[in-house]
């Protein structure tokens, strides 16, 4: 067996393990473990796409969670405000589409249900159950969220074109803060801090492998998130291996030199923003449908810090390592949640675990800037190269 292939084989084994895990694991905490893994996959998508943006392209953006939020809020608002009915309500804003009517609800926010009702509910009261209202398909919402993430990525990418390093980090952090402020302020539309509710990812259940799964089952969202992660990693690998990856790394090392050598820096800088924000938005949209609520608290800086810490501890210049780091650290975060007692002192680990996490992040940066997983991968790859060059040298030295 070739030593160089060990990382690839380990990766394949890991994918297989994650694929069969839900079928073989059957302990009592099955839903809990599944939830941790789904959340882990979610963070893995964010961390790996952020490592593409920050590690590969050198654009240290702190607005990644903002793009996640754009995806999540787009699908939330889409499924919350748009419905299809066969007859017009004559109360809402509505457009005929084929033989159906597209209903746009009026935003009323959180009001007492006895005083104000949205126009659709009033219409339903009048119809008294005689009309079937169709909600919008979830997958269309997720696709729209992804697209919206791409559009915002394009806008932000164009705005930050002249900015480098610290300016870029500040500007994107500010963008994400503005987004959070807007979402919490526009209570009538987004329901502010209360958060907006979403339908299930598979609202009518789904039949997989000849087994009917309920909408609350963890297995369908597990595979949905898992395949999204695999798709993102696949796209990222393909991009990194192609000309795109090369150009983007040139951008990171020296933008002026890259431009002088004929790299269209504007195009690649914007493109890398668009692609990574689409990934973040897709992950956010899917996660929002899985946890079924999205609130401005999902956009706070803590969330961004978690993604950054996961990517850095895994390996910021290697997105597979970043993804793995995210899954491992998400598990670690949950594992550390258990509070314990030292004599009379109760240590509340729900907060201390984040301190541990922060210290781990700083120590990783200081003593192993490539991350904790990348040196392991490098060990196998480099070991092989060294042996080969040694063999070559030996052959040259003994004529």
């Amino acid at each position, binding site marked *: 067996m070739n030593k160089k292939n060990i990382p690839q084989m380990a990766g394949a084994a890991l994918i297989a393990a994650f694929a069969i895990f839900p079928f073989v694991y059957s302990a009592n905490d099955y839903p809990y473990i599944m939830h941790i893994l789904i959340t882990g996959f979610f963070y893995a998508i964010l961390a790996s796409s952020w490592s593409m943006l920050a590690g590969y392209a050198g654009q240290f953006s702190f607005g990644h969670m903002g793009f996640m939020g754009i995806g999540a809020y787009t699908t939330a608002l889409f499924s919350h405000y748009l419905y299809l009915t066969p007859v017009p309500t004559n109360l809402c804003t509505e457009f005929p589409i084929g033989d159906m009517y597209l209903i746009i609800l009026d935003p009323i926010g959180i009001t007492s249900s006895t005083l104000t009702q949205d126009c659709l509910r009033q219409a339903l009261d009048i119809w008294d159950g005689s009309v079937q209202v169709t909600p919008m398909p979830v997958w269309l919402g997720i696709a729209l969220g992804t697209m919206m993430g791409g559009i915002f990525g394009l806008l932000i990418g164009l705005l930050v074109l002249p*900015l480098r*390093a*610290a300016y870029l980090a500040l500007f994107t952090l*500010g963008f994400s*803060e503005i987004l959070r402020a807007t979402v919490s*302020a526009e209570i009538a539309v987004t329901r502010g801090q209360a958060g907006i509710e979403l339908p299930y990812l598979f609202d009518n259940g789904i039949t997989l492998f000849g087994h009917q799964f309920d909408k609350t089952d963890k297995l369908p969202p597990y595979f949905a998130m898992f395949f999204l992660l695999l798709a993102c990693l696949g796209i990222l690998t393909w991009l990194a291996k192609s000309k795109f990856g090369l150009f983007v790394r040139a951008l990171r090392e020296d933008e002026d030199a890259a431009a002088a050598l004929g790299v269209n820096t504007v195009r690649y800088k914007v493109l890398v923003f668009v692609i990574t924000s689409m990934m973040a938005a897709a992950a956010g949209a899917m996660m929002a449908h899985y946890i079924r609520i999205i609130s401005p608290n999902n956009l706070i800086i803590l969330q961004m810090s978690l993604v950054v810490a996961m990517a850095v501890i895994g390996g910021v210049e290697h997105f597979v390592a970043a993804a793995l780091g995210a899954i491992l650290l998400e598990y670690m975060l949950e594992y550390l949640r258990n509070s314990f007692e030292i004599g009379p002192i109760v240590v509340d680990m729900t*907060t201390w675990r984040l*301190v541990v996490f922060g*210290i781990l992040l700083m120590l990783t940066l200081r003593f192993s*800037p490539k991350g904790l997983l990348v040196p392991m991968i490098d060990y196998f790859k480099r070991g092989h190269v060294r042996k080969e060059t040694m063999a070559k040298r030996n052959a040259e030295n003994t004529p």
Partner: protein
Amino acid sequence: MEFPVFFWAALGWMMFWGVLGSIATRYVYLHKDLDTSSTRLLGSMMGAATGPIGLVPLWIKTPEITTRLIIFATLGTLGVFMTAFALADPGNLCVTNGSFVASQISNGVIIGIIYGFMALGLTLIFSILGVVSFAHGEFYMIGGMVTYFMTTVLFPEVTPIVGIAAACILTFMLGALFERLFLTPMYDGRVDRPVEYGILITFGLAFTLQYFVQATVGANPVKAKRFFDFPRLRLPSAEDPWLIKTSRGNMELFETISISNPRFTAAVMCILVFIALMYFLRHTWTGKALRAVSQDRQAAAIAGINPDRMNMLAFALGSMIAALAGAMLVQAFSWLPQVGAIPALRSFVIVVLGGLGSIPGAFLGGIIVGLVEAAGTGCIPDPQKAASYIPAYGMIVLTLTLLLRPTGLLGRKFASGTHGKF
């Protein structure tokens, strides 16, 4: 707002001519082979203020761009914007009530001084280390927390100066320790990309400090008692023979402007510390060495200054200034471990607006941002929304600065160190 359509139309008109002016003026000046460094700013301001009436003569005559011209155009833009707002919303408190406006302006200036003071720490760190300290807000928070514990929990009888001093010493040592442990690899090429390393490591420090404080103190808001009471001056009379009475209330000037006690004392102390700091920077050897390193690192090293030690001093001093701002504002706001995020972001805005490494610029920028926030919170019709949008006002200023005048108001064109350059 009574006529929102009119307001947005006016804003759209200004933005259209502003964008057109910034692009076309630069093009015209470039075409005539003239200096284009301030054309963006002048063109956009002229366009927004006067539309085609001012732009066309500008394009034809292409005068030399002076600071006075820019200031006139900027004031014109402000005037047009305010007129449009007043016409669109004639019933607004900002338009009808003069004493409210005076009150907002004075409060904006006072809080702006404190903002500027906090940003001073960041600009010190930025100009010497070339790093944006993302932990600036956390030092601010720690300064407030330490002062709260010293003055309210541990020693309620002691003078607040002791609490402030404790906060300063602690954060100074923390800053110095962090710099020695984690920032030293940046200077000698041990990390590939020092600027990004600096961003990430201070980000990690911010995260660690914030949750360390939350784990030890808890997440409940705390409030420190106010440091000093206002003296109330009153003529002595038979039943009240003392000249000076103390009062806990707000200071009322001319019976219109109301200034809250904690903010006022904080601003006064900030000014005092600022004067002391300026003396330190301009008249002591260490201060001169600090400024020398910020101007030219290598030349300073040749002159016998150890730049590494100045790095440590700058980071510790900058962190201490943030903590001092926090220690003074802890009496004005309720305090949480998360309280540092918005002031940190605001300090970044001020530093960019004032110009990197410029100390007067930081103060000017602070006052401008304070006024913009006071205008935003006072004039937006829905008060709840206005308060929620506080981080956005600064960001609008930041975006405009970066687009129109990236060097900032009083910024140097270049500075030493490994800055995130444009």
